[in-house]
């Protein structure tokens, strides 16, 4: 498929379109429509390791990109999650899908989210127009930043055809500090102290009784910071220092502890110090388990199926990541927006997709 063919397919569409990359992330209100896949729009267009930039067509498999980056000792810094285990999906995750859902993992607290690494997009809007914004350079304030707007818009404003990303070097070494036996409140206190230190923690989580802090960089630096953090956090007990723990961080990234457990999965974004109390409140409402990432700023909540776990008066937001189609029709998947913001979102959709054919309703709640 070419970008022109994508454009023709959208311009010629006579009804709603359900837009897929690899189809591994069915998040949102279920959409009824003809399938439009970008998987055939595939391939790395340009990669300049010395400039830390990579351009790829939207349907390019993430694995292909990661292999190319690894060959140059680089990586996607925002550590995108693979949703297949959690959502029980098959298929090949694409870079366009990651961008469309703004998927970021544990390293987000240190380096930023997917949207922070997105330098440019090409996309086709609801009228079939091929549009571009941003570019392939690291600093660019030319015109409005539609690049950010497209990140996380989940195919409701346009269908991505090409993305350009900033990448970063892989670190020489990784180490993980692990505390065991801290309760949630102490765990969040410990990771908060670590994140408020100058020691550049690139992962801070509390999962299944283990409190984890990740350090990455050159060897001496990693060892120095590990010692410094042990000292700083001595009052929380003695942390073990483990080399790597790649699997542990991957398990956190992909929320592995919930893969084989039934129940809906909710994702909260809050201020970290509010997290322990929120977790308690959610348990009071039946939550089965809580995993804390982003230093407590992100909560993965396992909950009974079909139950509305969204708390009111929340400073932050909640998204229903895993649930049956019926539940995703009945409950708002995304945080309901205040009226003026809702109006802006609707008006933007009407400009980008006047016929309302791109993933209609996916990000809305239609009671």
């Amino acid at each position, binding site marked *: 498929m070419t970008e022109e063919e994508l454009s023709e397919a959208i311009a010629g569409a006579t009804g709603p379109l359900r837009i897929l990359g690899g189809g591994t992330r069915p998040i949102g209100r279920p959409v009824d429509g003809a399938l439009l896949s970008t998987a055939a729009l595939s391939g790395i267009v340009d990669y300049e390791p*010395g*400039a830390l*930039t990579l351009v790829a067509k939207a349907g390019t498999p993430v694995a292909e990109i990661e292999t190319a980056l690894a060959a140059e*000792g680089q990586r996607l810094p925002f550590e995108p999650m693979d949703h297949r285990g959690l959502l029980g999906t098959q298929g090949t995750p694409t870079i366009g899908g990651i961008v469309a859902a703004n998927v*970021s993992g544990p390293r987000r607290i240190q380096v*930023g*989210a997917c*949207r*922070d690494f997105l330098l440019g997009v090409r996309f086709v*809007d609801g009228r079939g127009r091929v*549009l*571009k914004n941003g570019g*392939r*350079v*690291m*600093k*660019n*304030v*030319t*015109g*409005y*930043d*539609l690049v*950010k*707007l497209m*990140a*996380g*818009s989940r195919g409701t*404003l346009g269908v991505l055809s090409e993305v350009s990303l900033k990448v970063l070097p892989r670190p*020489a070494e990784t180490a993980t500090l692990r505390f065991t036996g801290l309760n949630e409140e102490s765990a969040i206190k410990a990771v908060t102290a670590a994140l*408020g*230190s*100058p020691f550049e923690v690139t992962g801070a989580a509390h999962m299944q009784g283990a409190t984890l802090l990740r350090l990455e960089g*050159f060897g*001496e*630096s990693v060892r*120095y910071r590990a010692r*410094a953090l042990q000292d700083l956090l001595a009052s929380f007990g003695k942390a073990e220092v483990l080399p790597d723990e790649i699997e542990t961080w991957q398990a956190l990234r992909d929320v592995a502890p919930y893969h084989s457990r039934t129940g809906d999965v909710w994702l909260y*974004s*809050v*201020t*970290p*110090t509010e997290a322990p109390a929120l977790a308690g409140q959610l348990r009071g409402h039946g939550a089965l388990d809580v995993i804390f990432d982003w230093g407590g*700023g*992100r909560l993965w909540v396992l909950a009974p199926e079909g139950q509305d776990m969204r708390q009111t008066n929340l*400073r*932050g*937001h909640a*998204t229903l990541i895993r649930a049956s189609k019926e539940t995703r029709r009945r409950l708002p998947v*995304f*945080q309901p*927006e*205040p009226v*003026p*913001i809702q109006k*802006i*979102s609707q008006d933007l959709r009407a*400009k*980008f997709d006047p016929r309302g054919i791109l993933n209609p309703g996916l*990000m809305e709640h239609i009671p």
Partner: protein
Amino acid sequence: MDMPAPDARIMALKPALVARLREVLPHDAVIEDEAETRAYECDALTAYRCPPLAAVLPSSTQEVSDVLRICHEMGVPVVPRGSGTSLAGGALPTADSVILGVSRMTDVLETDYENRFIRLQTGRTNLSVSGAVEEEDFFYAPDPSSQLACAIAGNIAMNSGGAHCLKYGVTTNNLLGVTMVMMDGEVVEIGGAHLDAAGYDLLGLICGSEGQLGVVTEATLRILRKPEGARPVLMGYDSNEVAGQVVSDIIKAGVLPVAIEFMDRPCIRATEDFAHAGYPDCEALLIVEVEGSDAEIDEQLDVILQIARKHNPVELRESGSAEESAKIWLGRKSAFGAMGQINDYMCLDGTIPVSQLPYVLRRIGEMSREYGLGVGNVFHAGDGNMHPLILFDANKPGDLELCEAFGADILRLCVEVGGCLTGEHGVGIEKRDLMVSQFAPDDLDIQMAVKDVFDPKWLLNPAKVFPLAASATRRAA
């Protein structure tokens, strides 16, 4: 640079407008006297000036909302203003517009070290944000050279960067939330102290929208703990090509310096005459700075120095003390001032892919000879954000126009090699008419459609960013 002719209907409204504004603001917050409105006639793009119809200096979000509601009802354009340091004419008024300055809104509203954010009114200057959290050894990362004067309001509107953004990112990467007043007076909250937006990334859209979508009155910013230390090295090379290669090799080696700054010969000479920083007489000079504890700095510098040596530097100077570090930075920090001693200058801001550096510098040199105007280059090399400073004589008829034509050629060259017109200063009026070289008509149309959503009557800073011809029907509607 043309600006739309003032609308006679609006000019005639002045007495009625001022009376209504005085109903909602204290007397001294409404400025209408012609001698006083002159203080708002330009920003740092001083070649263009025009006093506004009136200027208002509200003290709260509510007052901003009241002002906008009145201007909206009366159909009067509003130009938001922070500290007026825009180099692109972003805060330039038209004679029929009201300047809305946020300079009285400087309060810190909340500081939270555990959750690592600060919430404040946007009239606060960039440097005083770091100042407010310094006692706890925290700082706000984006650090434009104008940080003593420029306001967070302008930083958000322009998505400003700084010397350290290679590591810490620019404003948009450090902005968590805003309170914004829409042109019709409605107050909206976007984002907050948590990470990442629910729904569309409106925060990302507003950041860098040059005061055209709403007036940002409060902001939540990410603050960070200060690194334990920082140390620069200075390297001199015989050619721009080699210096460019060094930059690329450092990046590829897996070191992430906080800054990689580049100066070319004309700029080195000018700063030497002016600041006597003791820079070597060479073709290209790099300043590379890394952060961390002493041991971490040594480790990173080992890698960097090895690369530097491999390329036969004419000079390689490590800093051994705070004074030596300051000396290394002295010339770079006085570069703009030094060029200003020679003549008037225009500062460009295009970004290019790093690999194109040697080619673009060579072409700029050739064009400089063709135009007969001097140019010095000083810029953030790690991210390809160039700052060619073109020298001209404002008192010499035709020189400004010549300089603008030269500047436009350089920016078109940046776009041609895969870059963009502006990396951190914004479009304003300065690059407005060059937008067509980077964007196709549809690309501009969809951006203008976004403004239609936020400001359907096109009253907020309407004559900026988009080529006047492209926005004409929307502005007239």
